[in-house]
């Protein structure tokens, strides 16, 4: 048996960088590793590649341009480069390390099965300009995924090419505009309730509409009476996020759609939070005309630096003829064909045009379809149920220590929302978020949505187990209690992170975006080094 650790140190005590233990000479503390900038690591004459010929002096001239200064690129050996990025990655937090409770972002586990499927050579090694007959399998994946998305939403068509949520919103609004213009009824106002995602008004404005705000009711939902009051012949439509960004289901959705349709408008639904209702509610049944689905949220494809987004848009029968190209159709011999500009004249004469160069994010389609098929219809329903159950577990476990402004509005959906109303003067949402870093968690979404003061928005997703949720809740309770007791040490959190609390205001007001070595210091470049001679 190993001898007991005489120091009594345990991992939860954090690095012992002060107090009894001396500072290390290296600046590293066991697995807590410091790392300089890559430019500070460079040395003269280093190179990661062994050329089998003399590359010679690089010419300082490109066409009529002459380089007058050194190219300040870092020069490192391969192991130094690999270690640099690996050491940096250890200072980072990731969904593979622990919960990522960012509300409205839906950071869920990316199943490894999805990755294996996406890496199959038949999907990974193809090119969008290959002859169509050689990529029928990939086309079949897009067709199957499109079919699932239409069935899950009860909608008539789906545009697969939008690259992410906001791109999908634009696609939906452009389809709405095309439909209105086709009936000779150009309208100029889009109504957006307070509980919508911030991208919604931006999208409507970008598409050339005037945006008007619809207030929320006291229980955090769209004020139906106020909405009805504003409807009229100048209103092109509404953009509603459902479930909304307070984590609530818009119960009046069908009545909202009916009222908008009766006034000649169309209904866009921001489906970013579809993960809370997938398999339970079909948006088509609620009278929605267009909705984007974030594959990188609901269908577990990588999110937030891990991979590109993908935001297919489902469309109602009224909008289906205006869907963008390219899209897939089967010809009379059953072969899948991509409808592009030339064939659009025959097969999509009313299409509003093209959203992207190609058909969309193939790598995300394979992952999303793998997720759907591995869960099945019953599994997808359970995804929504577990995500909602987890969020309600967080809401009810913390409502006695943190103010939960909509706790009385019924169960929440995928995310739990708290405000800073219970915190004493001087203690803020930011202090709780920074404290969460010390507790080993990624902070929740803070100060959004704006309708709640000092918002803390927590979305656990179905990924988290009860044990994991209890650990997170324990940390949140402890932080809330410390804040209420006026514990000043919370103001200096994070204490155990690679960097202490940043001066956010200074970072935004006077950002230092470049680094330069002092003369004679490591990192100072010289022309001879670049030539490799």
């Amino acid at each position, binding site marked *: 048996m190993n001898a007991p650790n005489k120091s009594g140190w345990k991992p939860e005590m954090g690095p012992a960088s002060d107090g009894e233990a001396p500072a290390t000479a290296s600046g590293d503390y066991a697995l807590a590793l410091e790392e300089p900038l890559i430019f500070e690591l460079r040395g003269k004459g280093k190179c990661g590649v062994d050329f089998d010929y003399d590359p010679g002096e690089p010419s300082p001239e490109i066409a009529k341009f002459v380089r007058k200064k050194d190219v300040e690129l870092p020069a490192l050996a391969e192991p130094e480069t690999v270690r640099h990025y690996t050491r940096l990655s250890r200072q980072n937090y990731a969904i593979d390390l622990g919960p990522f409770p960012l509300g409205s972002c839906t950071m869920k586990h990316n199943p490894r099965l999805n990755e294996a499927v996406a890496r199959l050579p038949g999907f990974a090694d193809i090119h969008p300009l290959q002859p169509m007959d050689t990529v029928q399998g990939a086309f079949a994946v897009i067709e199957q995924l499109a079919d699932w998305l239409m069935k899950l939403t009860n909608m008539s068509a789906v545009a697969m090419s939008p690259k992410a949520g906001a791109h999908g919103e634009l696609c939906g609004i452009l389809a709405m505009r095309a439909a209105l213009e086709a009936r000779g009824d150009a309208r100029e106002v889009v109504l957006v309730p307070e509980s919508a995602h911030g991208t919604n008004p931006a999208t409507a404005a970008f598409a050339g509409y005037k945006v008007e705000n619809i207030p929320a009711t006291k229980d955090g939902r769209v004020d139906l009476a106020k909405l009805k009051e504003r409807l009229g012949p100048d209103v092109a439509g509404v953009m509603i996020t459902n479930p909304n960004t307070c984590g609530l289901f818009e119960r009046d959705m069908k009545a909202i759609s009916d009222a908008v349709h009766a006034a000649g408008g169309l209904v866009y639904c921001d489906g970013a939070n579809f993960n809370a209702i997938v398999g339970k509610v079909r948006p088509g049944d609620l009278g929605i005309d267009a909705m984007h689905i974030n594959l990188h949220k609901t269908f577990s494809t990588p999110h937030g630096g891990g991979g590109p987004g993908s935001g297919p848009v489902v469309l109602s029968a009224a909008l289906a003829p205006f869907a963008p190209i390219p899209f897939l159709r089967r010809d009379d011999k059953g072969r899948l064909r991509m409808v592009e500009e030339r064939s659009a004249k025959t097969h999509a004469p009313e299409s509003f045009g093209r959203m992207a160069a190609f058909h969309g994010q193939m790598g995300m389609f394979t992952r999303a379809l793998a997720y759907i098929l591995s869960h099945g219809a019953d599994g997808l329903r359970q995804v929504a149920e577990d995500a909602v159950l987890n969020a309600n577990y967080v809401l009810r476990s913390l409502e006695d220590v943190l103010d939960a402004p909509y706790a009385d509005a019924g169960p929440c959906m995928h995310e739990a929302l708290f405000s800073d109303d219970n915190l004493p003067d001087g203690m803020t949402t930011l202090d709780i978020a920074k404290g969460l870093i010390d507790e080993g968690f990624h902070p929740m979404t803070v*100060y*959004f949505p*704006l309708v709640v003061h000092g918002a803390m928005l927590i979305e656990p997703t179905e990924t988290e187990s009860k044990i994991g949720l209890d650990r997170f809740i324990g940390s949140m309770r402890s932080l809330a209690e410390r804040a209420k007791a006026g514990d000043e040490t919370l103001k200096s959190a994070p204490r155990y992170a690679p960097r202490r609390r940043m001066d*956010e*205001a200074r970072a*935004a*007001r006077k950002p230092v975006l470049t680094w330069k070595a002092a003369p004679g210091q490591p990192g100072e470049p010289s022309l001879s080094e670049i030539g490799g001679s």
Partner: protein
Amino acid sequence: MTIYYTEEHEWISVEGTTGTVGITDHAQEQLGDITFVELPDAGSTVKKGDSVSVVDSVKAASDVYTPVSGEVTEVNPKLEDEPELVNSSAETDGWLFKIALSDASELESFMDEAAYKEFVESL
């Protein structure tokens, strides 16, 4: 000189037909540390209620609506380098823009200092 306050947390101090517009101390406190102020163009003509300026803080980007119609005559040149002036002196040195009022009757619906104070307390 009279100072008026709006429900959108702006103040306008009027001297003759020229108004100076800023956000209130309460507004800057809610926004937190201000990092950037986007100002209207001097010489532009604006309509009451138009979004004419954006105040960025560490928490959010917020539109500022002009409380009155008229022509923007001057913007605060100091804010480009010192947006923090809006935090430290929102109702004096941290003013945003000056405007030549085209319709003084627009001022009638605004609050005075006491009424605004009461309004903030009711929030």
